[in-house]
């Protein structure tokens, strides 16, 4: 029998596709079911963030940073505000630092819940998704209680925060922690150690450490490859050095180090560590005025600041250049998902189409952050 004629097939995945987590287009080159090449096409959500900053004063930019990684607004604000504060060289009241840490860690849990929920959804497990969103809702309620907003807060200001937290908030947060601890176990039982889920994620998309570092991959995606590196500990900022917590890494408990399952499980572990940080912060939070250090006019001297922070997705950094005026000369956001996504081609080649969905999900990308 004559050999069948085969040819490479090029297809689009996205931009309107639920598994691409937003408006991302992947151009796949296929040999049957096997993926030969993945080329991400970005820019569908580009909103010229960096151009807009040229026409705004420093505090006006904070709401824009909210909209970058919209599942993780608190950490975005913190990263930008830290950069501006570094330029201004101002001292921040202790209480403000504690409040910021509590908010950022709550936000980290909320972000990881979305990551875990949607990842389960990618694999076809719809129930964990609902559980995760139910718990996330509780965190959003806490945010609503303290600043009125549920998603885009404009909460962390240069030199302070917009509202002080109340004893009521602390009480509710304590209740939440008590409620949430067993829920992590529940999600693990539902999803993490589920046979089908493991079959879909273990040994898929293995990312070696050296490739990851060279490509600028960071956060849980990097730690899934087994390197114990967390900016909160290793290049500490704010007051993270005061708290005791563990850096979670992929250990190869299931599958091999660096595969999708290990990247995923880092997030599940990290939620517990965030709870520990919040507990410690709530115990030792000092009294004080949260707006005493807010400057009347933000006008930094000529200079530049580059601040790296550990956002739930990885290394989020802002590079702010000041020419001494009221508006920044240049603001560059070093977007986490942008760098993490760039390795997808390298580690997807040779896998099936369905695996590309799992690999993409394991990066926990947010297109608002990639496209800016």
């Amino acid at each position, binding site marked *: 029998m004559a050999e069948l004629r085969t040819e490479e097939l090029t297809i689009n995945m996205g931009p309107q596709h639920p598994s691409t987590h937003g408006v991302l287009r992947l151009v796949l080159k296929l040999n049957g079911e096997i993926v030969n090449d993945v080329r991400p096409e970005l820019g569908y959500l580009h909103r010229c963030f960096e*151009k807009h900053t040229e026409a705004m004063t420093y505090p006006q930019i904070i709401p824009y940073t909210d909209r970058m990684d919209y599942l993780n607004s608190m950490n975005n604000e913190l990263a930008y505000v830290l950069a501006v504060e570094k330029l201004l060289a101002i001292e921040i009241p202790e209480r403000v630092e504690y409040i910021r840490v509590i908010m950022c860690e709550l936000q980290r849990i909320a972000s990881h819940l979305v990551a875990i929920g949607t990842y389960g959804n990618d694999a076809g497990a719809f129930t964990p998704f609902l559980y995760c969103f139910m718990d996330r809702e509780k965190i959003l309620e806490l945010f609503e209680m303290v600043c009125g907003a549920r998603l885009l807060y404009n909460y962390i200001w240069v030199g302070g925060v917009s509202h002080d937290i109340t004893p009521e908030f602390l009480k509710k947060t304590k209740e939440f922690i008590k409620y949430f601890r067993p829920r992590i176990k529940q999600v693990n039982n539902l999803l993490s150690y589920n046979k089908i889920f493991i079959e879909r994620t273990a040994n898929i998309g293995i990312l070696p450490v050296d490739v990851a570092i060279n490509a600028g991959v960071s956060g849980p995606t990097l730690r899934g490859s087994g390197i114990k590196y967390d900016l909160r500990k290793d290049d500490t900022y704010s007051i993270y050095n005061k708290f005791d917590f563990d850096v979670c890494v992929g250990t190869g408990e299931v599958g091999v180090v660096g595969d999708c399952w290990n990247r995923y499980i880092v997030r599940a572990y990290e939620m517990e560590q965030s709870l520990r940080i919040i507990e410690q912060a709530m115990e030792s939070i000092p009294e004080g005025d949260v707006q005493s250090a807010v400057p009347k006019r933000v006008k930094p001297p000529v200079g530049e600041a580059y601040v790296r922070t550990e956002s739930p997705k990885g290394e989020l950094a802002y590079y702010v250049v000041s020419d001494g005026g009221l508006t920044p000369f240049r603001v560059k956001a070093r977007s986490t998902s942008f760098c993490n996504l*760039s390795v997808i081609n390298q580690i997807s080649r040779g896998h099936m189409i369905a695996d590309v969905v799992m690999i993409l999900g394991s990066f926990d990308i947010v297109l608002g952050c990639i496209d800016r």
Partner: protein
Amino acid sequence: METNEVYEKLKRVFEDGIGEIKTDLPTYPFFFVSADKINAVSLFLRDEESLQFDNLSCLSGMDYDKDNLAVVYHLYSYVHHHKLVIKVVVPKSNPVLKTVSDVWAAADWHEREAYDLVGMTFEGHPDLRRILLPEDWEGHPLRKDYKVPEFYRGMKVPY
């Protein structure tokens, strides 16, 4: 290793390729590297035993001043846990510099972004296309003299 030590070391190897060092500004100290030497310097920074800058944290293109564009490299070493900031300044009349995407894979998309938004060309980049804006967009928005076009393919740009 501190920036000035790295600077001394590079100065001995690359001589004229390394520009002046700035430590007095209220910022992290940095130094300049010439546009045609940046690839060789980067390779040296990555592979030299005592430096090992294995991670390009960020690469930002910017409109530097009236006549120049600049690219800023923020480097980090996971081995030695030290940081470095270097800058390359290129004239607007001929904004060309060597790519570092073969040294750090992270630079690939960052350089495409810098090309897209600021408009410098990275010589030797394997796939220098626009990344965030449409392929047929005219101009580079992050230039200070950029004018928002009134129309894009016959569609009115709303502001």
